[in-house]
């Protein structure tokens, strides 16, 4: 197998993800979140480098909902019945694929750079 496996099974037409989409999925990986919490989490995860606007966030959420990567549900423990988002099994699988892809690239990059330095 090639070091960087680019077969269709590994790299589907949705990968690689853009950084903001990856961060949205990572934000939902550990627990479900509502819109504002996702925005803040992305800002924290990227050390303030990625700051999404509300319009951009919801554009991405709509697309992820449409592709069945995430799902929307009503939080029960809040008085206002806030809508929250969580990863679907498909979304989690795709996130894992993206992480594996990035690991392979990192490994390849490390090898290439080490070869150059010799």
């Amino acid at each position: 197998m090639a070091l960087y496996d680019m077969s269709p099974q590994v790299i589907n037409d949705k990968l690689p993800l853009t950084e903001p989409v990856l961060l949205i999925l990572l934000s939902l990986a550990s627990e479900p979140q509502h819109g504002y919490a996702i925005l803040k989490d992305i800002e924290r995860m990227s050390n303030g480098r990625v700051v999404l606007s509300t319009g951009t966030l919801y554009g991405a959420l709509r697309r992820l909902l449409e592709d069945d990567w995430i799902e929307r549900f009503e939080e029960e423990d809040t008085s206002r019945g806030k809508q929250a988002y969580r990863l679907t099994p498909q979304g989690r699988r795709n996130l894992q694929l993206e992480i594996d892809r990035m690991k392979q690239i990192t490994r390849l990059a490390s090898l290439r750079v080490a070869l150059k330095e010799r």
Partner: protein
Amino acid sequence: MLRVYRKLLRLYPTEYRELFGEEMIAVLLQERDENANRKLAARARLALREIAGLVGGALHEHVRVRFEFRDVLFLYDGRFTMRNGFRFPKATAVLMTIILAGVIVAIRKGEVIATTLPPFSQPVTPVHPAHSYLLPGVIAGILFFYAVGLAGWAIVFALRRSGVHRLADVSGEQH
């Protein structure tokens, strides 16, 4: 500001607004409350980013609905609105101020010239027929350059999407 956001939300397609409208307003409210004590410049930056996001998002949604563009969002995420925050270069602000000053000076200058000239009494004559022949040529020229620009943009865009431009970076390693 919330009133502006509500107005901008109306730019979105109805279906989208019904699904996310109230939720987006709740997020904008939370953001506004959290940033209430920040400096005016920071709040202005935030407002600009939100306005740009809402306008860009609404435009994108209409294009998507109208042309049934499914994949445009991932492209849009990376290339347009989903940049790392909204940055308004300082150089642009300086340039815009210079241009504005230039326009004001030109208007003032025009007014001065107008007052010094004798009143214009000659009747305005229609454009000479010979001049009208130039118009189709000018329009054709504009269309030509527009088409060339569009084709160039399409080629650059296709190369960027395919990643072909990066081949030059790796080809050196193969020698």
